[in-house]
C-alpha cells in the first residue's frame, strides 16, 4: 500500500513538476562528466581504428543517437499505453515532451551516419538496413508530431497521438524485419560494418560513457520539457505560484 500511495502522489502534476525539477541536476551533472570523458576521449585520446582510421570517431555520437531515438520512441509508446489504459494525463505530458527530443536524435543519427558514410564508402547515403530503419523511425516521429499538431484541443491531440504511438511501436519490429529482409535481397557492394571486429576496450569504455551520458542528457532535457507540458495541461495551476522557479 505504501508503494501505491507514493506512486499516486508522484502522479499528481504538482509533485511530478517538483520532482522533475529536483532531478535535473542529478541528470545534467553526471551527463556532462560522462560526455566530457566519453566524447573527449573519443575525439582525441582513443587510438585510431585499424581499418577506418579516424573516421570511426563519429560512432561516439552516431551509436548513442540511434539508441536514444529508439529509447525515446519506446518510452513514448509505453507512456501512451499507460495514459490510455489508466487515464493518467501526466503520461501524455511525458510523451509530448519526448517527441521532439527523440526526433532530434533520430535526425542527428541519420546525419552523422551520412557524414560517416562519406569517408567510409564514398557516398553520403546508402540504403542499408540500419540507416533505412532509422529513416522510417524519423517518419514515425514526424507523423506523430504532425497528428498532434493537427488537433486544436490538447486533450484530443493527446489521446489520438497516443494511439498512433502505440500502433507505431507495435509496427517497429515488423518494419525493421522487412527492411532487413529487403536489404539482404539486394546485397550490393555496400556492406556496412560498424567498428569492424570486436572493439578494443580503449574504444569501448568511452563509447559506453557516451551511451550513459547521452541517456542522462535526454532525461535532463525531458525533465525541462515535461515541466512545460505539465503546466500547459493544467487548467488552474495555483500550485505553481508557490513553487520557486527552479533555475538550471
Amino acid at each position: 500500500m505504501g508503494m501505491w500511495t507514493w506512486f499516486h502522489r508522484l502522479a499528481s502534476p504538482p509533485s511530478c513538476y517538483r520532482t522533475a525539477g529536483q532531478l535535473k541536476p542529478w541528470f545534467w551533472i553526471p551527463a556532462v562528466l560522462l560526455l566530457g570523458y566519453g566524447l573527449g576521449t573519443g575525439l582525441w585520446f582513443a587510438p585510431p581504428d585499424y581499418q577506418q582510421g579516424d573516421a570511426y570517431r563519429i560512432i561516439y555520437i552516431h551509436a548513442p543517437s540511434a539508441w536514444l531515438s529508439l529509447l525515446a520512441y519506446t518510452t513514448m509508446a509505453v507512456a501512451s499505453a499507460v495514459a490510455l489504459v489508466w487515464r493518467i494525463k501526466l503520461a501524455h505530458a511525458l510523451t509530448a515532451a519526448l517527441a521532439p527530443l527523440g526526433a532530434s536524435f533520430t535526425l542527428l543519427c541519420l546525419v552523422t551516419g551520412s557524414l560517416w558514410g562519406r569517408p567510409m564508402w564514398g557516398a553520403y547515403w546508402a540504403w542499408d538496413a540500419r540507416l533505412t530503419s532509422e529513416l522510417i523511425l524519423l517518419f514515425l516521429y514526424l507523423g506523430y508530431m504532425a497528428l498532434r499538431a493537427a488537433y486544436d484541443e490538447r486533450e484530443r491531440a493527446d489521446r489520438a497521438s497516443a494511439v498512433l504511438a502505440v500502433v507505431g511501436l507495435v509496427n517497429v519490429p515488423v518494419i525493421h524485419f522487412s527492411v532487413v529482409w529487403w536489404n539482404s535481397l539486394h546485397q550490393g557492394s555496400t556492406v556496412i560494418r560498424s567498428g569492424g571486429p570486436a572493439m578494443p576496450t580503449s574504444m569501448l569504455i568511452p563509447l559506453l560513457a557516451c551511451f550513459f551520458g547521452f541517456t542522462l542528457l535526454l532525461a535532463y532535457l525531458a525533465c525541462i520539457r515535461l515541466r512545460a507540458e505539465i503546466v500547459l495541461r493544467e487548467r488552474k495551476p495555483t500550485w505553481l505560484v508557490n513553487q520557486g522557479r527552479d533555475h538550471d
Partner: protein
Amino acid sequence: MTEIGAMGSYGVYVYGSYLLMAVVVGLNWWLSARRERLAIEQAMRRLAAHDTKGETP
C-alpha cells in the same frame, strides 16, 4: 593523442558531427527551456485573470 590537424581529410566529418551534436543538443535545451518559461508565463497570466475576475466559472 591525436593532433587536431592530424585527422586529415576525415577531420571535417568528425568535427562536423561533434559540432552538429552540440548544435542539436543546445537547440533542444534552449527551445525546451523557452517552452517551459512561456508555459509558466501563460499560466501566471491565466491565474491573474481568474483572480481579477473574482468569480471563477
